[in-house]
């Protein structure tokens, strides 16, 4: 299970679990993750949850910025297009900072291995 944890002064103030297939993020009422703050656009960004096509059991989380006014930043870089989130990425929605955590990533081996057929 993955989550976005909102950080204020590097302290987690809230955590939102990302249950798919789509999570709408924005200021508008009805967004799955609603951030009622002036720098956030109505429908600011979308996270899509997809099973990895090549690795059984692995889940990918892709974020797309919906042409928001103040942008979506991944690790301080303003994103364009659609981008895969990796655990511990810092996700900034307007002026609001989150950390993306995917606990399942830790179960993947760090050394090389082969998909057995």
């Amino acid at each position, binding site marked *: 299970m993955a989550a976005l944890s909102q950080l204020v002064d590097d302290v987690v103030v809230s955590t939102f679990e990302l249950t798919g297939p789509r999570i709408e993020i924005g200021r508008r009422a009805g967004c799955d993750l609603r951030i009622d703050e002036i720098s956030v656009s109505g429908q600011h960004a979308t996270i899509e949850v997809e099973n990895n096509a090549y690795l059984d059991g692995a889940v990918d989380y892709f974020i797309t910025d919906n042409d928001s006014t103040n942008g979506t930043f991944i690790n301080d870089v303003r994103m364009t297009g659609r981008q895969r989130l990796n655990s511990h990425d810092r996700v900034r929605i307007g002026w609001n900072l989150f950390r993306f955590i995917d606990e399942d990533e830790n179960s993947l081996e760090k050394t090389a291995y*082969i998909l057995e057929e």
Partner: protein
Amino acid sequence: MTLTAAGLCDIGTKRDSNQDTIAWAVSDDGQRALSVVADGMGGYEGGEIASQLASDTVMEALTPLLASGAQDTATLQDRIQDAITLANKRIHTVRSDHPKLSKMGTTLVLAWVQNNQACIAHLGDSRCYLLSGKTLTQLTRDDTVAQNMVDDGSITLEEVPRVPFRNVLTRALGSSDDARASFGHTNLAPGDRLILCSDGLTGAVTDADWPDIMAPAPSLEDQARRLVDISLDHQAADNVSVVLVQSI
């Protein structure tokens, strides 16, 4: 045209075993060359055994062909594939006989050069590049989950080092009964070099920097040494292997 080859293999700065194996041979008349890099995996002992077994087997099977050369491309590919299939069988036999080695496997990249042409076979993420002047071209495509995702547009090449499954191979020797290699071909002009390497090098030094790193070194041995030394300076996390083949 005369061929010359050199190679170097180093344990790197973080690992406590060297699971890479390299090998090369040039025919007595310098007209044909065979070179191999294998990067083993699957436990402390298993990776070493798998890469050595793969390298030894393909060298044993193909070195006799260096004297005469292959009649044509189709025959050459068949001989190379037969050698790889034999290596795969041997790895499987050891896996079956020794439970502690049941997960071992290895990548393999192999280059055969004759008549100004190179035939490259590979499985896994060990690579072959062509260096022509200062232009470096990657000739192999990584058999990895991450590469599949780059190809389908899910991620960019720049994101590969950050994805959690960057080390997951989709093909390698030892993973299935069918070790069918991917084949590629390229022409070699005088001065051109083939660079065979394990991911210890590609992970530590950006390939775009290689031509400048190699340029000051007069000999192939020195060029290989410079690539390995700089990867160690960059704290190469994996074993680092390089084999160079040059047409002069």
